């Protein structure tokens, strides 16, 4: 489903060039939930940004269902809109929108009818256990609830790929477990591919596979947790 070949990425820090990723290769199957693991500075966020088409300034190639990632910004935006979902560490909900409006936002971008937006957003919020919070603003929700809204937003338009950056890092253990459970359940139910950058061993242990990165390279361990 998703394959990346010879991915290299350098940063310039003043006169110095720092290698963030050096010749990284890999493949992620459709419906797979993959964790990108590694210590800080290992390059997992850099790889995640490249796989999420948020960073287009890299060497190498990424293919989604055999098609190379677009290099044009507007094409990448269109592909993100239709085929990708995002879950961020700090939830990143739109503060002026209610939970249902936040969830409906990707549907609105994809030009679903108002009726469909409402129906699908409600269904999704029910699935993440927020049936009583449709019209709550983000500020009125707890961290765990906000992240559940974010997961609903990421999945509502049935994307092929969901990119999650440290989804449990800002949550207490109870909320984190809840979020992990929801992501795993819905991911399997909807057949969505997840790529998750995480430090959280509980999160990583729930994934089908963990790609371990060290100093910008995939380390020899490519643990098949659930193999």
């Amino acid at each position, binding site marked *: 489903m998703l394959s990346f070949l010879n991915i290299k990425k350098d940063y310039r820090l003043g006169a110095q060039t720092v290698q963030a990723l050096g010749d990284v290769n890999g493949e992620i199957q459709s419906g797979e939930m993959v964790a990108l693991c590694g210590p800080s500075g290992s390059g997992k966020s850099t790889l995640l940004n490249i796989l999420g088409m948020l*960073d287009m300034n890299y060497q190498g190639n990424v293919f989604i269902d055999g098609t190379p990632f677009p290099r044009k910004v507007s094409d990448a*935006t269109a*592909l993100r*809109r239709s085929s990708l979902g995002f879950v961020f560490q700090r939830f990143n909900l739109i503060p002026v929108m209610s939970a249902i409006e936040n969830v409906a936002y*990707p549907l609105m*971008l994809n030009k679903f009818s108002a009726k469909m937006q409402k129906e699908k957003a409600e269904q999704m919020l029910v699935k993440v256990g927020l049936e009583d919070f449709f019209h709550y603003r983000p500020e009125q929700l707890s961290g765990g609830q906000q992240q559940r809204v974010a997961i609903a937003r990421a999945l509502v338009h049935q994307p092929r790929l969901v990119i999650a950056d440290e989804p449990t890092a800002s949550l207490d253990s109870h909320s984190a477990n809840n979020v992990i459970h929801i992501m795993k359940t819905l991911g399997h139910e909807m057949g969505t591919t997840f790529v998750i950058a995480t430090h959280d061993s509980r999160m990583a242990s729930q994934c089908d596979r963990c790609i371990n990165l060290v100093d910008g390279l995939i380390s020899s361990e490519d643990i098949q947790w659930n193999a």
Partner: protein
Amino acid sequence: MERLMPMSIKSAWLNLLRNSRRSILSILIIAVVVFALCCTGGFGLYTYQSLMKETAMSIGHITLSQPQYFEQEEDLPLDNGLSDYPMIGKGLDSIQEIHAILPRIEFNGLISNGRKSTIYMGTGIDPQEFAIKGEFLAVKSGNTLSPDSDGPAEKDEPEVMLGANLAQNLKVTIGDVVTLLSTTADGVLNAIDFKVRGIFSTGVPDLDKRQLYINVASAQALLSTHKVSTLSVYLFETQQTSVVQKQIDAKLSKMRLAEPVITTPWQKLAVFYDGVKNLYNRIFVIMGGVMALVVFAALFNSMTMSVTERTREIGTLAALGTYPGEIIRGFLLEAVLMAICGAVIGGGLSAGMALLLTFVDVRMPPAPGRTASYPLHIYFSAELFISVALAVAIICFVVAWFAARKGVKKPIIEALIYV
């Protein structure tokens, strides 16, 4: 997309409420600017309207004369006068828009009280002019010319109205007799005694020193002529000037007249009106420019802060697949909402001020060269308000576009980690 619009407006409104103090301040700035421009422009419009009425009332909406009348000095009085004026008057009677057609004779000479003489500028008018035009002169003492004083031949003592300063200079008062001397149309001197019937003020001291009015027939007797200088056409509505001018031209072309006759609208003779209008227009443009800069600077600061504070949100929207144009559109909508709120408040305030000034008598000091103060009024013009509101909305639009463009140009990854 039909459903997207209300959601966009709702989001824009809620975004404005996020930092309500800053939004209120921005809206207030817009409101003050709209108020100031509507009031200044409204005062200008009132002044134009007043001057237009004053000018048209003074010289008539359309002046009929010989072609050379306004172009070259006459060698002898009424060289460029109209001899067929009664026929012209009858010929134009059928035009319904015309309120009155009044003959005028402009002349000058010396006025004497027997001991002292001074120069004067005289105007021979139809005494009906006072009834038709209303109070176009402020009568200080006595009365206006009698409508029945048709000519010196029928009356022993023809009448004159003197400017206040002229009467003071000659030390004459109502009932006194003065002698007017002038050159006749044949080039000889003539003099007639006139009884002072009224003393007036034009509001312009220099004019009050020289101006006098007698009736047309008396002026014709003094100048030994049957001609008049011009015919002044007064209309019911000033706006009909150009239409009626065409009708008059058409009728004149069919008449067989002793002299060629042309029509001149009041605008071409209103040098003072044009001067004031040009001056006010320039002041308004400069003031508008300064105000535009104030709005631009204040809003740019406010919008830039708003965009900067929402950098992470912009990054999120971009990550979810929102195009930069769509993100910018949200900010533009916020700016337009602010412009609408500010314009409505500013416009409402200026309409209220215009209404208030119709009840409260606030006087403006006399204009340069004049003696009388005048009431301060403001016209609330919907056209002016719409123009000002549109201009402000465009400024807000440009400001929001610049500020938002800066926000969406930031790379998504940088925007997402912005704190």
